[in-house]
């Protein structure tokens, strides 16, 4: 018996809402499954041996492909290409660089090779 004042939703809308909720749940699960596996609990990174007895500090790792001449070329290309339209941003987070460079490659019609060097410059 339908309570007074209750109007049932159309069937198609009910199907859509149910499908959306199911999709959201599966998407969150699938997204988690696509992340790289976490390091097992308690594991620590390997430490190089120190002949003096204590652990040797690990030298800073240079990003793969970021050679000094490529970074210099990237800065030059950045000023040459991006400067056609606007002033350079005062600060650009390396995390944001990928999205920015891809957007500018498409919107500003940057050659692929130039976009790669500009990205190395931002992340270098």
């Amino acid at each position, binding site marked *: 018996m339908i309570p007074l004042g209750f109007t049932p939703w159309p*069937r*198609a809308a009910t*199907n*859509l809402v149910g*499908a*959306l909720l*199911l*999709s*959201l749940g*599966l*998407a*969150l699960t*699938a*997204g*988690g*499954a*696509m*992340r*790289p596996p976490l390091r097992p609990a308690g594991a620590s990174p390997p430490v190089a041996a120190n002949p003096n007895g204590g652990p040797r500090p690990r030298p800073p790792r240079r990003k793969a492909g970021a050679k000094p001449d490529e970074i210099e070329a990237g800065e030059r290309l950045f000023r*040459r*290409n991006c*400067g*056609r*339209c*606007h*002033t350079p*941003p*005062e600060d*650009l*987070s390396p*995390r*944001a660089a*990928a*999205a*920015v460079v*891809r*957007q500018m*490659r*498409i*919107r*500003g*019609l*940057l*050659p*692929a*090779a*130039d976009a790669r060097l500009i990205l190395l410059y931002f992340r270098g």
Partner: protein
Amino acid sequence: MSGGVSPRRPRRAIRPGFRSRYRAARPALAGCLVALILLGAVVGASAQQPPIVSGGAGFLAQTQAGATYLQPVIAPVVAAPLGEHWLFESRSDLRGFISHPSPAAGDGNSGYDAQFFGTLEYLQADYLVNSRLTLVAGRFLSPFGIFNERLSALWIDKFQTGPIISAIGVRGGYADGVMLRGVALTRPKLQLNYVLYEAVQSAVHKLESTRAEGGRAGVFLPTFGLEFGGSFARSPKVGGDSEDVYGAWVRGDWDVKGEAARALGGRGDWIQAAYRLARGRGPDSPLGRLEPVWRWQQFHRVRPMAGDFLPGANLREEDYGVNYYLPQNLRLNVAYLRSQGPGGAPTSWQLGLTYRFLLPL
């Protein structure tokens, strides 16, 4: 028991209406499946390439014929890369238009009138096919000329108002459809780029679009900081055909751009020059942050055409401005616009403060 075939057990009756409800839900289920795949992929891939929220915000003021107009505006951009080939991006423009009538109006109204507008400028999916080709689908900025796609952003445009001929070839400025774009040829001293698009007719609210097709080709000479090109647009239903040529020279502290375009309703051109006083002092010095700007433009009405977003009569305008680039991506702009002709107000003053923001999510 008889030797004949036993009677077939009747099939379990299907509830009436089940098949029709399933057919009605199939499109929704298909759409949700696609959304599921995309959402899962975005979540999984976002660790290395997080989406960004960027864009411009500002407060603009203009005084014209004694009346003052205030415009608070924010134009956020969302860009989400996905994998090695995809980018989903969108930009909106949210602004208020607050006007205070001129005391000379004499109607005794001393208050402000306010209206607010929201526009979806683009919402597109980009796919990088290879180094020479990108496919775009969705709602995008009409790629006609040099201004609409590259210079119209709030924090890029040297003046508050775009050129008076900026509507030629783009009408409202946006199109729904598909686009091919890319760099056809790349050499150390030469780049050739191209754009081709097809737009569909749309009367959907906030997604209005006019049936059109067009393209643009450009040449960029990096060594000289020089680029030039041309555009065309075909709109059978409105406005007819439009053509455009443009050029730009950006070298050192100089930034010079210009464009000439024509449509069925008229033709016009503009040239703009800006000089950043950074030579010898650096762009971060007090004087180096200063940038005088000058623009000259004209429009000649050939035949009356309602709704083409162009001045109703001949118009010539000369604009003088100064931009001051403050720290933290802030920019102060002051400009004086002087018009000649029945198509515009004689003089107007503009004052604006804009801010460019960029945040990784």
